[in-house]
Every structure is written in C-alpha cells, then in structure tokens.
C-alpha cells in the first residue's frame, strides 16, 4: 500500500505551493499588462479557437433558430404595438438632431467631438472562461486592429458589457462588468426627464444576487426602482450614454451618508456572441490627468 506522503512528495508539494503563491501575487500585481509569453499563447490558442468557433456557431445557430420560431408570434405582436409610435418618434428625433446641429454650429462646437461620440470595432466572441468566477471573454480582435486596454465593450442597443483587460496581437480579453476583478469604477448617471441628473459610481458586482452596486449617490437624490442607469462619460474611456441597467433596489449605504442602489445589468451577460468595442473620440485624461 503506497503511503500518502513520502518525504520527497512533501517537498514537491511545498515547492509547488510556493510557486503558486508567487504566481498569484505576480499576476495580481501585474494587473492589465500581459507578458509576451501570455500574449503568444493567447494568440496561438486564439487561432484554434477561431477555427473551432465557426462550425460550432452554425450548430448553435440552428438551435437558436428553432427557439426564435417559437417566439416569433409573441414578438411580432409586441413589435407591432411599438411600430405605431415609431414614425412619430423618428420624426421627433430628426427634428431634435437637426436643431442640435444648428445650435452647435452657431457656437462653433461642431469640430469638438462630444462625450458621446465613438468609433466602433465589431468583434466576435471566440472563448469564455468556463467557470463562473472568472467573467472573461476572448474576442477575435487585437492590437493589430487598433484595440487598446481599457476600451469599453458593448452589445446591441448600446448596452455596456465590460472593458478590454488584456490585449494580444490578434486576440483580446474582455473583463465583463460582472467580474469581481474589474476594479474599473464607472461613473454613472440617472437622467430624469424633469429633474437634475443624478450621478454616482458603479463599484463592483454582487455575484450572489447578480446585480451591480451603484454607490455614492447623493442622499437627497430622487432614485426609484425602474430607473435606467447609463454611463456619464466622465470617467476613463467610457463614452456617454451607454446603458448599464435598471435599478432594482434602493438603500442607504452603511454610514447613512449616501444612497446605494442595486442595478440589474441591461445586457444578458450569459448569451454574448457578437459585440462591439468602442473608442471614444473625445480625448481622455485617464493617464493620471497629465494630458491636455
């Protein structure tokens, strides 16, 4: 009968524990930069992932189609209701944007990009961490396509899903907003029709409830369940007007000085396939406020 631990095995175990701790602390400290080995492995495996992804997508697409056919009737009904409003909303939109442009031209503001202007890069998801603790997805665009660290990533309908955390040459990794490691604080805002906008910060994600934590809201602000939270364009590389989610619950924070709210993400983070990486046109001062 083999003994569970001989001396030699104990030494191997201890050594590997030390190596483990060293590696963990290294990668926690290193943050978003990736070494060339990591980039190389990521790019090589990314190629294989891309190849496997194409047929898999066809098969998955078939099941998706069957599902779609099931829902088609219900969806059609709902869309028809919305369609009645469409013409008037479109007309209103056109009027407003024309008016906006005229006013901007009068003020000579046309050349400065607004906080909400951005450039889009479309990308396909080619991988996702299979455990639920790492909320990372891999995209098939990298440095050669002009992708940089920190760029926000959205899905259809301008719904925010995360930001680029690591870039290889041909692939890049997105840290989703549901990732605990995503330390990016996102400046967010609730825009009411009649009253002042309410500003706050998205600071983390509660994995047990599946909600984002929206904090540092002024205590007197009028925050209600069902309001929509968007990015304010005041922090980092996030452009203005990306939809983050809807408020589900409002409390005061633990010291009672500010309000805190729980926000349900607008995008379905479990079912992503085609996403857009955006680069905002307005210049940012994310490099420690040195520039500009």
């Amino acid at each position, binding site marked *: *009968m*083999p003994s*569970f631990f001989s001396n030699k095995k104990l030494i191997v175990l201890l050594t*590997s*524990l030390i*190596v*483990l701790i*060293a*590696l*963990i602390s*290294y*990668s*926690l400290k290193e943050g978003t930069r990736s070494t060339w080995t*990591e980039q190389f*492995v*990521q790019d090589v*495996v990314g190629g*294989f*992932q891309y190849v*496997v*992804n194409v047929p*898999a*997508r066809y*098969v*998955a697409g078939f*099941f998706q189609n069957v599902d779609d056919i099931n829902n088609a009737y219900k969806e059609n009904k709902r869309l028809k209701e919305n369609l009645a409003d469409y013409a008037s909303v479109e007309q209103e939109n056109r009027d407003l944007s024309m008016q906006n442009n005229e006013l901007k031209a009068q003020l000579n503001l046309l050349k400065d990009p607004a906080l909400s202007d951005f450039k889009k890069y479309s990308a396909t*998801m*080619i*991988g*996702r*961490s*299979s*455990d*639920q*603790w*790492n909320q*990372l*997805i*891999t995209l098939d665009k990298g440095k050669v396509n002009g992708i940089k660290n920190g760029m926000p990533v959205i899905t259809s309908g301008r719904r925010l899903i995360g930001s680029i*955390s690591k870039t290889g040459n041909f692939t890049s*990794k997105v*840290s989703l907003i549901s*990732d*605990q*490691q995503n330390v990016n604080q996102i400046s967010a805002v609730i825009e009411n029709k009649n009253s002042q906008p309410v500003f706050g910060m998205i600071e983390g994600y*509660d*994995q*047990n409830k*599946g909600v984002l934590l929206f904090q540092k809201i002024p205590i007197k602000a009028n925050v209600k369940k069902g309001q929509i939270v968007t990015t304010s364009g005041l922090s980092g590389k996030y452009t203005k007007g990306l939809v983050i989610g809807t408020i589900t619950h409002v409390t005061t924070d633990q010291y009672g000085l500010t309000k805190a709210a729980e926000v349900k993400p607008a995008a379905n983070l*479990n*079912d*992503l*396939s085609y996403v857009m990486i955006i680069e905002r046109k307005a210049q940012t001062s994310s490099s420690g406020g040195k520039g500009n």
Partner: protein
Amino acid sequence: MKQIKVFIFLFLLFLIQGTVMPLFPFSYAWGKAQIVPEFVLVALLMVAFFGSISWGLKYAVLFGFLIDIIYSSVLGVYAFSLAVAIYCAQIISRWVNMNAAMTMLLVVAGVCIMQCEVYVIYLMIGLTDQQPSFFFQWNLIPTILLNVLFAAIIYYPFRRYLERISDGPEK
C-alpha cells in the same frame, strides 16, 4: 506518437469547454445554476487511472497553465488545482477495483476536489464573493452532474484506447 493523439484529444476538449459550450446557453437556462464543464479534468482523470499517472500529472500542469492564461485572470491556480485533484483521485484509485461505477464515483470525487480548491483559492484572493451555501447548491451539484454525464460518454472508448497504448510498449 501515441501521446500526441492523447494531447490532441485533450486540446480539443480544452477548446470545447471554453469555446463551444458558451454558445449553447442551456447551462444558464436552469435558474441560478452554474454548470461548469470540466471536460479536461475528466479526461485527465482517465489518463491517470488507465494510462500512467506521470503523464496525467504532466498534462495536468500543462493544461492547467493553458486554462490559467486563456480563461482566467490569475496564473497558477488551475495548474495547481488540477495536479492536486488528479494526484488525490489517482491515489484513491489504487485501493479500489476499477469498474465503470467506481470510475464515475472517482470522477465525482475529482471534480469535487478541483472545484473546492479553485473556489477556496479564489475566495482567499478576493476574486469571488460567492457564498459557500450558494456554491455547494448551485455550482457544485450541477457541475458534478454534467461532468459525470460526460465521463459516462467517453468512458468505454477512451479507456480501451488508453489501455491499448499503455500495454503497447511492454509487449
């Protein structure tokens, strides 16, 4: 040459677990359940049981690092956990008679050890704040079910293949 085939099979499973599985949202359809495909671990357990433990451990470290680099943000956790899980399960397997049912039980044990290790390490370094009760109820049990199902599918062909290649050099 024979090991290359095993390697290719494992690499394919590695791709399936990260690239193909997320495309089928069935794993999220079931309420809060978090079903984690650990196909590489299941195949590696079989390599360790029916092939050789040394190759099993080598592959474990290799694929552990691959998972760390590609699918996670912290290096080393999966490499360590995979190797330990496979070593422990293999030690138990020496004391029992390996038949299909026993293999399934050991796969359950291996998946349990692996998930718990990764969970505890992630909890310690603050990468997750999942509560233990949530983990046991919604993560561990569905994960075990999926992986045992997968183990049952590959058990007969993969075992036969592994026994053939490990008998090969001796004859």
